[in-house]
């Protein structure tokens, strides 16, 4: 009983984590299912059909590729624009700081349906043709803020003495940026890019409003939900989940090793010198 009281919060914490993964388990298990009817909702019979024939249902793979293309394009642009803003916010003085903060915060605090609808209103009024272009424009718009927040946190958490040391050692501003600042901020930028890609890849509401006849992976799933989602979708979602998880865990592993190595290299200046 005392053990229970002492560890109650830990037990609850683990239960909440398990709860977060229940639907993931369902998605994975049902990817090995052979549904009895149209709907892949309950377990029927083990089958590897979906895994051996991933593109077996028309439209699944093409929508998947479309989503990857959109994700890459919008992530590249949004990461660049967002990183620039983050540097300006942390390193520079400028007028209109609170307006800037507001403009970055509001997209994160606006329901997707409102952003999707207002952007569609703009495109309709401009008679702008809907399709891949409009979806990418929309995705860049809502990813920028998340990139700013992530990169800004990394920049603020950086030890300014590292850059000072480089300057003391007569590194010019360009060398400081290239050999000290950029390598230190890079993990933050990569994390922001991964976050941006996963937001873009998974976005349904904003995409649906601005896609016209274009079918992204989530739009495909939405349409298929009415007539039965093919098992292949579960298999593809499982792959995406595992790949993303592997990237994040791998990133953490590399980060830990880097940190430990830095801790061992006692005087920081040595590290900076050896690189420049």
């Amino acid at each position, binding site marked *: 009983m005392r053990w229970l009281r002492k560890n109650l919060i830990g037990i609850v914490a683990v239960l909440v984590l398990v709860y977060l993964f229940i639907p993931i388990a369902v998605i994975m298990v049902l990817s090995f299912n052979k549904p009895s009817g149209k709907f892949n909702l309950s377990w029927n019979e083990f089958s590897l059909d979906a895994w051996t024939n991933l593109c077996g249902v028309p439209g699944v793979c093409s929508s998947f590729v479309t989503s990857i293309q959109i994700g890459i394009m919008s992530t590249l642009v949004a990461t660049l624009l967002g990183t620039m803003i983050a540097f300006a916010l942390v390193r520079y003085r400028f007028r209109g700081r609170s307006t800037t903060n507001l403009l970055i915060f509001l997209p994160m605090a606006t*329901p997707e349906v409102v952003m999707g609808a207002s952007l569609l209103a703009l495109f309709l009024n401009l008679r702008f043709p809907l399709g891949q272009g409009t979806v990418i424009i929309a995705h860049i718009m809502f990813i920028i803020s998340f990139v700013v927040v992530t990169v*800004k946190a990394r920049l603020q958490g950086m030890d300014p003495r590292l850059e000072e040391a480089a300057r003391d050692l007569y590194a010019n501003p360009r060398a400081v940026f290239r050999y000290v600042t950029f390598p230190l901020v890079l993990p933050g930028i990569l994390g922001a890019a991964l976050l941006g890609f996963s937001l873009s890849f998974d976005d349904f509401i904003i995409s649906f409003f601005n896609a016209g006849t274009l079918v992204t992976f989530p739009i495909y799933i939405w349409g298929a939900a009415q007539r039965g989602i093919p098992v292949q979708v579960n298999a593809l979602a499982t792959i995406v989940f595992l790949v993303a998880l592997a990237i994040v865990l791998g990133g953490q592993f590399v980060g830990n090793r880097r940190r430990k190595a830095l801790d061992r290299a006692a005087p920081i200046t040595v590290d900076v010198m050896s690189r420049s």
Partner: protein
Amino acid sequence: MVAVVPTTGGQASAAVVAQRSSKTGYLLLFPGLAWLGVFFAIPFVTLFMTSLQQPIPGKSGKYTFGLEFGNYVEAFTEYWPLYVRSFMYAGIATVIALCIAYPLAYFIAFRAGRWRSLMLVLVIAPSFASFLLRTYAWKTILADEGFITSTLNALNLLPDDRILNTGIAVVAGLTYNFLPFMILPLYAALEKIDPRLVEAAGDLYASPQTAFRKVTWPLSMPGVVAGTLLTFIPAAGDYINAELLGSTGNRMIGNAIQTNFIEFRDYPTASALSFMLMAAILVLVFTYIRRAGTEDLV
């Protein structure tokens, strides 16, 4: 300039760096802010103008410039129950999410030790599987002949003898889907708390409960406010859960906006509905900003 600054306090030297004032700052800001201005801010103007448009007589589905404030009255009269339902569902989901998220965030912040970063990864990991599929998976979990429904039914706890296609399923889906948005801000706030403050409360003979109530909980308030907003706002605007897990009687305001915009092509009504939703949410956000200040938001 830099070398003179004592390097003991990171804060002091960071401030020196932030003094830099040149064109570069504006150049770095411009492209991103311009993008947000053109594709986030200006669309609200067009949304507002669209909400006031009037139909062109004789051409259905075509609208022209107008100042039809009546669109708002009509839209609200027809759809006000959906606003009430959306805010109610989102409110319940937010409260449940707070109760579930707090113990986990607390554990990660104070007790997890070397498992901390792994647990944080596990919190965001479910988001890597499709939102739509995860929501759809709840159809399996809450199915009528499923374990959860039959257990609750055996205990006579379900008013409709089922969960799927009721408001309960929609709230359950909303709670699940937006839970990470509650956990992460809570964790960020709890992690900043100096454990010595809680110890000090103990040294002053506060029971663990009192120490929590008087020290930990008040200090975690920024996380509670941020988490509540970040859960409530997307939940109130969501229509995926209502569509996949609810019945026609559980429609939320997002469903109405989507059908009016994309299926009925009744742009003025849909725009008026979006604008009213945004207005309600902005009131919430600005209340928050007055509490926390803009610098803490981003």
